[in-house]
């Protein structure tokens, strides 16, 4: 036999490759258990939205995927490669974590652009100095990305001179510059003035439309409903309810989710 064909079931379309998979993830901070056994799967092209109240563990869940937080226990598989963990949950190999992170583009609530570098340098930093992309090529790619998020004319500016919305668009472009297999968004619009939210959501919507794999922690329910292929409602470190957005937002089953949706609308 040659290479195995993609898993198929009679009459069903071929299963898309799995991008991110989390099994029974647990995370405690001291005695507080923030995640109490969460499982999640994102195939390529999926847009998974994670919603939930503050303290529900949604940001922690996202940050465990690229090991900005070290899980207490559980399994994490990125692009088919399982991250090897020691019994106490810490990653066994820093190298493996670093390589896995290069396949994930993370966008933060607070943008976190490097303030001592221009927008262009923010985009070329990792490609040139970590991934070994030739500078000319990295610059060309970065300029194309900046044009795409509408910031071509800000390439030489320092982050402090940009508005919040511009900074976040630059941060998205920076994450895209490493050509990640999946994007992780941690409340990307929560730190923005209301009038700047739209421009950032437009960029994310655009990425979803081109079939990018994304996991998105958000408070923007309307947006989640519009772009997500799958929605997860997290409560107290457990998945309370999940499903397609139409079902979750249109006909929530659990009382907690009903109450939550009412409180945020």
């Amino acid at each position, binding site marked *: 036999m040659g290479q195995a064909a993609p898993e198929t079931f009679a009459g069903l379309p071929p299963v898309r490759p799995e991008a991110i998979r989390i099994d029974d993830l647990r995370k405690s901070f001291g005695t507080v258990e923030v995640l109490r056994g969460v499982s999640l799967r994102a195939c390529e092209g999926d847009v998974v939205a994670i919603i939930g109240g503050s303290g529900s563990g949604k940001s922690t869940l996202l940050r465990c995927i690229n090991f900005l937080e070290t899980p207490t226990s559980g399994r994490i598989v990125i692009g088919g490669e399982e991250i090897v963990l020691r019994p106490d949950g810490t990653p066994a190999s820093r190298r493996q974590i*670093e390589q896995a992170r290069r396949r994930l583009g993370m966008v933060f609530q607070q943008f976190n652009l490097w303030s001592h570098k221009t927008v262009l340098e923010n985009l070329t930093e990792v490609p040139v100095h970590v991934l070994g992309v030739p500078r000319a090529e990295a610059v060309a790619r970065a300029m194309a990305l900046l044009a795409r998020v509408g910031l071509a004319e800000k390439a030489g500016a320092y982050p402090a001179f940009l508005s919040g919305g511009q900074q976040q668009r630059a941060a998205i472009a920076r994450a895209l510059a490493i050509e990640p297999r999946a994007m992780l968004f941690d409340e990307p619009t929560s730190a923005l003035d209301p009038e700047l939210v739209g421009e950032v959501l437009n960029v994310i919507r655009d990425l979803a439309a081109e079939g990018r794999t994304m996991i998105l922690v958000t408070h923007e329910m309307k947006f989640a409903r519009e772009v997500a292929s799958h929605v997860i409602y997290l409560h107290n470190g457990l998945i309370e309810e999940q499903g397609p957005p139409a079902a979750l937002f249109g006909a929530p089953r659990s009382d907690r989710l009903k109450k939550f949706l009412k409180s945020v609308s």
Partner: protein
Amino acid sequence: MTGWLQPHRVVMIALALALVLWSAFSLRWDWLAEYAPLMAEGIWNTIWILVVTSVLGMLLAIPLGLAQAAGPWYLAAPARAFCTVIRGTPLLLQLWLLYYGLGSLFPQFPWIRQSDLWPILRQAWPYAVLALTLSFAGYEGEVMRGAFKGVPRGQLEAAKAMGMPRLTILRRIWLPQAVQRALPTLGGETVLQLKATPLVATITVMDIYAVSSRVRQDTFIVYEPLLLLAVVYMCITGLIVLAFRWLERRVPQRVA
């Protein structure tokens, strides 16, 4: 108004000019020609001691600050102890302990006396450089500790999240920002370091201060060499201030 030439400035310039003319004509400068070569040497010694000890001290201060800001306890504790001892004792004491203590210990070991280093170790300047370097490292280690801690965590996290190795994060993100944050303080500290250099005259190093003392001893002219000494230090201070201003401007900061 014609730009910078405003009335109060014209008055200041006139006053300064008057002062210069007065000191040129009514004070004694006939010794200058004879001592000019020695003074040039003294200025050179002062400047190279300042530059070398500041650069070496800074290179030591970076690990000292990093160990305190982010290191494990077995690195942080000695680093903190070092900074505390250095900052808690007078520089003159450190200088003399090294020169009269260490310096008089070395000749007792024949293998040191016979080593190739001996021609250097028997001179005074290595002890001056060592003492001033350690002193600068002690103060700047403390400055760098704060500077490292002041870099926003999120920016380091962003670097981590993109798969940057730890050493690359330190070299490309953390250290440049820490140094940039510390620059205004470091500028002031370098000026203080300049004014700590005359202490080396107490262990026979011929810096510009030592030269001015020599002129006084030789000629019994007291006031003029001191006046010139003040001018020299002010000029070097001006250069330091300009250099740091240039460094600070390299990354534009938004004016709030």
